[in-house]
């Protein structure tokens, strides 16, 4: 037994050392390319492999479900209700015909006329254009995360084993790796920018600052295993401009900042966020506001305008929606950033939900929970489109300009452009449609002007 003890601890030691060495090698292997901005393409191979596995898993579920006769959920792209293509007049006639025995042609009001409007209204609640878009986001394949499959049931042993393996890999291998990477990235950012801050202002400082920023954001991108495809990089924002993008999650910042050098805008937070903010502003002029200053719109606008007018300063990064939206639509843009009068560079960000849902539902999850969820997903795959720059035309005001930019972003990203709350033009359209319906209906109860004189 005495012989076993030293042998035991030797094995354990060796195991520990080799694991640490492997881990560190892995880290270095990931971080070094980040420093130089090159990519081995490993993440893309990873993505392709995952897709193959997902496809297999989906087929397995479908086969299993057919055998057991389970109702599977499938996206109802054509709507779920059998809509009858009758117009208002025909329908009212039907109601009258089946109701009383009076002559059909006399204009008449029936209490049961409201059945038509009632049914139509409930129909739109159950199945309207907007909802159809959301249902298109339901995954046709299962990505081995139980959080996305509402119908997760025991289908087959192989599938469950695969899922279990997935959990193991994600939580025990990927998660520690990612946390280590994130830690490295953030500490490098804080330390690097503080050091650069001590340099005298000049070309060297700018150069180093830019590269420290980019390098650390790239490490963070790898910490999330984010696979990003950039389109139209020639339209990247220039100095003196404002970069505007749709907002799905706090990760948006990392995604954009790893491909370009921006000045951030925001409120100073406490905690880790605050430490990062204070360090980063030493190296280059970001625009941070105290909590009290944020309420003062004039002050905010003034500082932003000053920043934008200085051509040596970096483009500002702003998310005008103000809150995270679930990446199927673009909500109303707040007009503040569009009043400043600088060139606006719109950017559309669209996440692929197959690998992990990046939407941050801030009422449901706190920041830490959210980040943990992100780090235990398979990957975050997204596309970024840099749209051509836009400027405010003389005949439009800030709101119209904001809506124009919003439409461009929505169109590019394939997102629904929800204008129902905000666009002035849409208000008028709503009223005209309503009026038409009312006109049609009033004909059925009152008839044309000639009939009126008879009664």
């Amino acid at each position: 037994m005495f012989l076993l003890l030293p042998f035991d601890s030797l094995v354990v030691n060796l195991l520990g050392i080799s694991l640490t060495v492997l881990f560190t090698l892995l880290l270095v292997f990931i971080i070094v390319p980040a420093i130089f901005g090159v990519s081995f393409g490993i993440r893309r191979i990873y993505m392709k492999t995952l897709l193959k596995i997902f496809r297999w898993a989906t087929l397995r579920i479908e086969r299993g479900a057919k055998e057991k006769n389970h109702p599977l959920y499938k996206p109802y792209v054509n709507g779920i209700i059998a809509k009858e293509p009758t117009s208002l007049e025909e329908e009212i006639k039907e109601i009258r015909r089946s109701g009383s025995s009076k002559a059909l042609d006399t204009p008449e009001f029936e209490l049961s006329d409201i059945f038509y409007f009632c049914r139509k209204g409930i129909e739109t609640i159950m199945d309207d254009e907007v909802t159809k878009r959301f249902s298109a986001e339901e995954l046709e394949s299962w990505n081995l995360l139980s959080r996305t499959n509402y119908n997760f049931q025991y289908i087959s042993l192989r599938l469950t084993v695969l899922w279990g393996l997935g959990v193991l890999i994600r939580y025990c291998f990927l998660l520690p790796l990612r946390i280590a990477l994130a830690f490295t990235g953030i500490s490098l950012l804080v330390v690097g920018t503080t050091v650069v801050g001590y340099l005298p202002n000049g070309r060297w400082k700018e150069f180093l600052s830019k590269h420290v920023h980019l390098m650390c954001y790239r490490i963070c991108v790898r910490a999330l295993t984010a696979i990003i495809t950039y389109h139209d990089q020639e339209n990247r924002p220039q100095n003196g401009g404002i970069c505007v993008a749709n907002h799905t999650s706090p990760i948006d910042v990392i995604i954009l900042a790893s491909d370009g050098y921006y000045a951030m805008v925001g409120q100073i937070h406490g905690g880790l966020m605050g430490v990062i903010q204070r360090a980063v502003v030493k190296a280059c002029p970001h625009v941070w506001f105290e909590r009290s200053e944020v309420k003062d719109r004039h002050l905010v606008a003034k500082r932003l305008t000053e920043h934008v007018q200085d051509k040596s300063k970096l483009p500002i990064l702003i998310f005008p929606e103000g809150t995270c939206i679930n990446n199927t639509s673009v909500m109303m843009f707040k007009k503040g950033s569009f009043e400043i009068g600088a060139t606006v560079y719109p950017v559309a960000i669209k996440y692929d939900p197959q690998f992990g849902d990046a939407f941050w539902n801030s009422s449901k999850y706190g920041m830490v929970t959210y980040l943990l969820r992100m780090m235990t997903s398979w990957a975050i795959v997204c596309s970024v489109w840099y749209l051509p720059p836009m400027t405010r035309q003389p005949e439009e005001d800030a709101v119209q300009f904001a809506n124009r930019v919003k439409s461009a972003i929505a169109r590019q990203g394939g997102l629904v452009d929800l204008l129902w709350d905000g666009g002035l033009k849409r208000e008028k359209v709503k009223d005209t449609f309503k009026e038409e319906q009312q006109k049609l209906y009033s004909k059925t109860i009152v008839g044309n002007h000639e009939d009126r004189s008879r009664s």
Partner: protein
Amino acid sequence: RHAAATPHSLAGALEQGKPQTPLPDGSSRTGLKRLESQTQPLGKYDLQGIGELAVNPLGDRIINAFFKEGEDLTDFRSFIRVLAHFRPVEEGKSNETGRPEPMNSRLRKLQFAFQLYDQDSDGKISRDEMLQVLRLMVGIQVTDEQLVCIAERTIQEADQDGDGAISFEEFSVEKLNVEQRMSLRLLK
């Protein structure tokens, strides 16, 4: 409403109808429960944002039918209960005594429609309430005198007990084809 109460789940829930009935397939009830736990409260604002509903002359009243008096939020269960009114009536099912009235029965459908008229919930449609609904449905197309004329004539014809208002019994008389007019058939 958006991320959670998606059409397929509504379709499923509607097929099951009321929550108190025991479901033959146990797993679907779990699905329903899971869905319920994942949904957030629905607000009036969410429904008001539906474009096609906003152009419906009775849009606002229909939205109010989903919410309790004075409240702005409703939960998934209550939302489904209201939608359950519009489930098609199953063929050949006799009304067994002792079971609670199903949500999609003829009676319930008529009650839903009646409630759109009777805003103060006193069980009668007064002349003013009738005028309000008429005004909503015709907008500016018809004059006040004509509307008053129509309203009074309708009340006269329907009123049996002579109280100048239409009670629910008077409303329910002879409304043929309620089952068809107030039902939504789901595509398979």
